[in-house]
């Protein structure tokens, strides 16, 4: 354990030296994602689910759909919440307990990207306006943390939403009874926003940082684009700073990379653009 800081120092030097030569420690180019694998409908008891592997990072996303009250100021919208559990099985640095600031930030970045692009048509999830709506829980279980949890979670959440099937409901306005039918329908998903995250290391911008890279990065920035070319979330993370040109680079590169990721995602869920 006492070797940890020394090892970190050596790793840091190695990563920086390679970056100076235009190389990343795992051989990728600065704009290359690691290998991505997506499996959907892996949890039969969830209305939707997706398992994503991004390099050695693994996340599992489950969608549960329930019925509840809308927010008082949004009576004509279904409710959507995103929760991330950084369970201690996934990393020696994760602790048991309620979500910490890292889990909360991660959940909120991904949630904002989906919410602000109105990817899920929440207005179609109203049963009785102001009284009864569908409630969608996006629950993220991180299984192995090898860096860039944001993009892995963003992919997993969209894969699970795109493949979720929810039971049709029949509402009897007179009796107030709600019957769950044995028919299923897809969740109404209209856009596919995907976050693209960059680490700044020794002044270099690299996409999809691995855990080794995250450990030595000065700063982090995430830009979420959907397929219409709109940005639905931006987040500078951790300490450090960016120049305006670096932000512009990140935005432009994110547009391109999210497009590639989206293509890959849609082909793995066997679906075209909504």
């Amino acid at each position, binding site marked *: *354990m006492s070797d940890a800081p020394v090892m970190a120092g050596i790793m840091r030097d190695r990563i920086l030296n390679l970056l100076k030569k235009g190389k990343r420690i795992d051989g990728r180019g600065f704009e290359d994602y690691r290998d991505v694998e997506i499996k959907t409908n*892996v*949890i*039969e*008891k*969830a209305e939707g*689910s997706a398992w994503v592997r991004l390099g*050695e990072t*693994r996340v*599992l996303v*489950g*969608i*549960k759909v*329930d019925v509840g009250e809308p927010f008082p100021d949004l009576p004509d919208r279904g409710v959507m919440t995103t*929760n991330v*559990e950084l*369970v*201690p*099985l*996934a*990393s*020696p640095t994760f602790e*048991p307990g*309620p*979500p910490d600031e890292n889990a909360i930030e991660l959940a909120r970045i991904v949630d904002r990207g989906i919410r602000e692009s109105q990817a899920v048509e929440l207005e179609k999830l109203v049963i009785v306006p102001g009284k009864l709506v569908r409630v969608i*829980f996006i*629950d993220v*279980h991180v*299984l*192995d*943390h*090898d860096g860039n949890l944001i993009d892995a979670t963003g992919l997993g959440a969209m894969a699970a939403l795109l493949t979720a099937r929810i039971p049709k409901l029949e509402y009897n306005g007179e009796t107030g009874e709600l019957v769950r039918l044995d028919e299923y329908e897809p969740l109404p998903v209209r856009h596919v926003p995907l976050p693209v995250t960059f680490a700044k290391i020794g002044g270099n911008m690299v996409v999809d940082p691995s855990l080794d890279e995250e450990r030595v990065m000065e700063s982090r920035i995430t830009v979420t684009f959907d397929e219409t070319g709109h940005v639905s979330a931006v987040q500078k993370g951790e300490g450090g700073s960016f120049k305006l040109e670096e932000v512009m680079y990140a935005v432009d590169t994110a547009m391109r990379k999210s497009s590639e990721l989206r293509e890959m995602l849609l082909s793995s869920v066997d679906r075209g653009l909504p």
Partner: protein
Amino acid sequence: MGRPEGLKLIDENGKRVDGRKKYELRKIDMEVGILKNADGSAYVEWGKNKILAAVYGPREIHPKHLQRPDMAVLRVRYNMAPFSVEERKKPGPDRRSVEISKVIRGALEPALLLEMFPRTVIDVFIEVLQADAGTRVAGITAASLALADAGIPMRDLVAACAAGKIDGEIVLDLNKDEDNYGEADVPVAIMPLKNDITLLQMDGYLTRDELLEAVKLAIKGAKAVYQKQREALKEKYLQIAQEVAGNE
């Protein structure tokens, strides 16, 4: 839970709701060493149960006052993913998972040579990704593989299985419907080399004879599970051996 009208758990041909015979296990698949960060890990699919176990340690323990001068501390955390059950489960430990964590710790502890690692902790994390009755025995089975994968010295593997009573008969390895509408569930864990019982619970209503019949049946089931554990470990080591050979 109110049993649906007309539901028979064992039909006229002696078949159960999922087509199994009385003493038949559900389909069980095991995979060892599938996580990068954990020191040891295993994934078990047992019927519709999907369980991931990871082991970290022996490692430093915080806070320090939990340290034991003569042995490692074993900590076990059994946790259900919110989407693992029909009705979404609120994240975080509830009373059930606190109790299950405790009995699983008691089931694994006798297998471990904790005295070899004084002042450290060995952490076992069991994540239930999908639950369908029998998660604690599947969890013990997975945790035991993960401990072996982590290279923690063990007296024996711990293998586990449940038996129960449905429609008046003692059967092996209840699934969710059988657990909900049956009369009793008897989870058992053993160290097969010496036939040591390290977990035994009963939730239900049985005569003395039924109870003992169930215990014996669960032990038989656990022995079958033990064979699968050994195969999964062999496969893993074989794979490693081949990789090593391949690299040479």
